[in-house]
């Protein structure tokens, strides 16, 4: 397949070419998925985030000015959507729902996730799960995606110093959890 630049694919998508949009999705779907997955710590939730991110991308392409990299833009949406999803879940924990709805939202893991977790969830994923949402996001962004602190600060609307401190706190908590689990 011919390798086209992002801006070319964006232009073609705006002209109604579905295949160009499909190429953009396929180009970035894995990166978006893994960023979301590490923050929300669940395959099902990451899947929801990925779909929403690409829907937003489609709707926002006409306003995309192209002065920043397309992936940078997608990355911001991904981090914010992942954090929003975690926030929504935490908020829903305090609302008395019927048993069925409560099960779905109160439990951060779906039935499918539970099966997957039993077989595949690693010690690290358990450690990350214990982090507060923003620390999870900071850890993912810095450790896995190697985003500069300045950029992270912009995405999370925090100071650079605060973001660095958050990263250290996240690493410290993960280190402690891993130590505890390994020694247990």
């Amino acid at each position: 397949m011919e390798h086209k630049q992002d801006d070319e694919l964006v232009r073609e998508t705006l002209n109604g070419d579905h295949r160009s949009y499909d190429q953009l999705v396929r180009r970035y779907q894995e990166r978006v998925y893994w960023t979301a997955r590490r923050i929300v710590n669940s395959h099902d939730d990451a899947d929801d985030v990925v779909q929403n991110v690409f829907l937003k991308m489609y709707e926002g392409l006409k306003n995309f000015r192209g002065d920043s990299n397309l992936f940078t833009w997608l990355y911001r949406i991904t981090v914010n959507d992942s954090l929003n999803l975690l926030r929504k879940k935490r908020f829903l924990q305090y609302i008395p729902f019927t048993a069925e709805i409560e099960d779905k939202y109160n439990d951060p893991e779906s039935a499918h996730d539970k099966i997957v977790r039993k077989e595949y969830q690693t010690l690290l994923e358990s450690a990350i799960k214990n982090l507060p949402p923003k620390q999870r996001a900071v850890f993912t962004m810095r450790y896995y995606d190697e985003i500069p602190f300045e950029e992270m600060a912009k995405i999370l609307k925090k100071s650079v110093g605060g973001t660095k401190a958050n990263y250290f706190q996240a690493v410290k908590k993960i280190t402690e959890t891993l130590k505890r689990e390994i020694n247990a």
Partner: protein
Amino acid sequence: MNCEDIKALLPDYCRLRADDDEAPMILLHLKGCPGCRAEEGDIRKAFGRIERDEPWKPDSYYWNNLSLRINERIYGGKEDRRPVAPYIRFTMPFAAAVTILILVLTAIKVPGPDGADGVLTSLKSMPAADLAEYYSVQSELSGMAQYEYEGAAQSGEAEDEILNEIVASDKNDLVSSYLDDDELLAIIDKEIEPAIVAALHK
């Protein structure tokens, strides 16, 4: 820099991501600070563990299917977000209106030679015996009704009463098939019913 400042930089330092101007300062501090060195050791171990981490990964089916699902949500299905073309904007309501009109017209039964009147004409032209047979077949009366009637007669129950029940129930079935037509009811009362009675008493 104090211990807190150094500790905040340790995660990047352990992964060789510290700034060039910060790295020598961290190294110098670590040489003289056992507390921070212990912290550095823990972080290195944790990172070593993370490096070996193999999370569950979705398979290729998931990746192929993901873009299809996203496309489905954008270009088709319930969440169609495409701008609606002007001709579609008018064509769809027009097609819906035509469909509703057809449904309404077919619901109002217009009497005609092929409708209830047609059946009525045929019934009127039939001899009473044929009419009784037609009615028997039509209402599935012949087998069960006759059996019931004969059984009832043998057991000494009032024949007329049972026959009336049978005829009444089947009359309703027949009539309900062709609207509430008074004329048809009259034919059934005057011709079909006596014919059935005659057939049953044979």
